[in-house]
């Protein structure tokens, strides 16, 4: 197990460097001059040159890359030239908002996929199997922003059960102070249950909208794998040992069927963070999505690079966790190391 973690850490580090390199090169290969874009068409060439040197754009590419990596890890994330604010303070508020939304969306998707797949496999029937299957098909076929709008219409306009597209908390509630920037977590840490509940209430619809697609994917994956292993001789033998159907399903079949779902979860979670822009838009969620989209359009290097690296770190940490959990379930994975 230790050697697995070590080898994963090394490959994670290489992956991180790779992600950094791709982000760095892609942005610099894009046409246009960031300094010129920042200052506008009417700025003098001297002013542009001065900004270029301030931004480090006149240095060699290698130096720029080195500075970029060094600054990221020392927490000096630079300044957004489009917005004139330090990236740290820009992303410091928005990234946790995206992360929190993504976490809730993912957990809802994962838990409901798990429960419904087990239920469907245990009680094969038109309802226990058909309803989640239909939901899964819907999830894979319907655009997330559209589903977000439908949820908004039903959950807010028609029934008033949930808050409208008003962001993370009503204006009258002061957000809890630090340390994570995720309001539900911070509220709990401060023992503020009322704010916790309010934040959760605001999270529900956007998280549902964002989580439907991963739900559909994870549900189908686990359901199919459960079906597969339920035909294995060990399923029969476990029942021959006197274990009930349900117990065999949960204690024997699930651990054998869940690994692909875990692996997929790692990938999906990264995807959620990067793909929440449209849902954030629909719910006026003050996340990183809009900021980064704008940053790409305006060649606002600093913002985009830091976002990519942050996402890469989260992605790599998630997959490291997934690998460790998977290896603790299946001993063959701990050995193989592949």
């Amino acid at each position, binding site marked *: 197990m230790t050697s697995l973690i070590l080898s994963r850490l090394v490959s994670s580090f290489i992956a991180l460097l790779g992600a950094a390199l791709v982000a760095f090169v892609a942005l610099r290969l894009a046409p246009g001059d960031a300094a010129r874009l920042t200052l506008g068409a009417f700025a003098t060439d001297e002013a542009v040159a001065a900004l270029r040197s301030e931004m480090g754009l006149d240095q060699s590419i290698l130096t720029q890359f080195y500075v970029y990596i060094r600054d990221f890890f020392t927490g000096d994330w630079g300044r957004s030239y489009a917005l004139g604010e330090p990236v740290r303070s820009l992303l410091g508020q928005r990234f946790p908002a995206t992360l929190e939304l993504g976490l809730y969306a993912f957990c809802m998707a994962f838990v409901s996929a798990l429960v419904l797949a087990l239920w469907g496999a245990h009680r094969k029937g038109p309802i226990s199997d058909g309803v989640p299957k239909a939901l899964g098909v819907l999830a894979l076929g319907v655009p997330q922003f559209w589903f977000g709008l439908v949820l908004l219409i039903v959950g807010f306009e028609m029934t008033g059960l949930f808050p409208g597209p008003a962001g993370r908390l009503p204006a009258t509630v002061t957000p809890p102070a630090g340390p994570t920037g995720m309001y539900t977590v911070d509220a709990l840490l401060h023992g503020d249950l009322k704010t916790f509940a309010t934040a959760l209430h605001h999270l529900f619809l956007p998280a549902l909208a964002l989580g439907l697609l991963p739900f559909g994917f994870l549900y189908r994956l686990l359901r199919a794998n459960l079906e597969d292993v339920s035909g294995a001789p060990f399923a029969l*033998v476990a029942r*021959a*040992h*006197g*274990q009930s159907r349900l117990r065999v399903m949960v*204690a*024997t079949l699930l*651990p*054998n069927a869940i690994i692909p779902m875990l692996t997929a979860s790692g990938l999906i979670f990264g995807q959620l963070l990067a793909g929440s822009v449209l849902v954030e838009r629909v719910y006026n969620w003050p996340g990183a999505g809009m900021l980064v989209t704008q940053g790409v359009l305006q060649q606002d290097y600093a913002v985009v690079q830091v976002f990519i690296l942050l996402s890469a770190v989260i992605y790599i940490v998630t997959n490291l966790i997934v690998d460790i959990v998977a290896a603790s379930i299946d001993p063959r994975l701990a050995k193989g190391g592949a």
Partner: protein
Amino acid sequence: MSGLLDIKNLEVGFGAVTAIKGISLSLYRGTRMGIVGESGSGKSTLGLATLGLLPDFARCSGEVLFDGTALHWDNDMAMAGVRGSRIGFVHQDPMGAFSPVHTIGTHLTRAYLSAHPGASKADATKAAVDRLDEVEITDAKSRLRHYPHEYSGGMRQRVMIAAALIGNPELLIADEPTTALDVTTQAAVLRVMNDVIEARGMGLILITHDLGVVAEICSEVAVMYHGELIQHVPVDQIHEKAHPYTEALLKARPRPGMRGERLPTIAELLPEGWSDV
């Protein structure tokens, strides 16, 4: 007198196929019955039907009494109380019969705890070690922590026998327990199985296509052909009163000194015009 196991008019179908065509058969306490027949004759289906472990789409009619009481196959909880603790089962595939992500210890303790619901974890571990000792797995205690892929085929099959016995059943149904093993390992596994069964005075249903094994271990033999029971006699009478099909089965076995000769097929050996019972 009713037996330990009474199968009455059992009929099993899979879709258009009728795998068991109305079999009635009794097994008395302490009897060791061999069930023989070629592949597809319905031997496994008979064993699984008894335990209520046929797939959901199988059609099943007739009745099986265990110790005088009818088994209710669709009642999963009731059957869970019979499986393992009253009737043990050994599967033919020592590779596939173990969950690859669980240790051998987990398999054994779960089987023990299913048969002894109130027992402690420590009791279960102790029973697991004892049963492994019984099937001659050395260093049982540390081997409990190992995974199935760390065991050889012969060891896995002995562990499966241990797991089938850990609930202290009165009857063991062993479905081709040695088919997947090489000849030397086969002999060792059979001897171990025979010893524990004898020591406990248990009933045995040994499903096999090897008449030699039946002659060594069993007291009775039942011959199946195309889903029907065509003969059921004490093992020492199999030659005297052999049914034409049984005779063909006997002749189709390799004999010492049969070198370079092709073994005859059952079809060639059956008497002219013999098609059904």
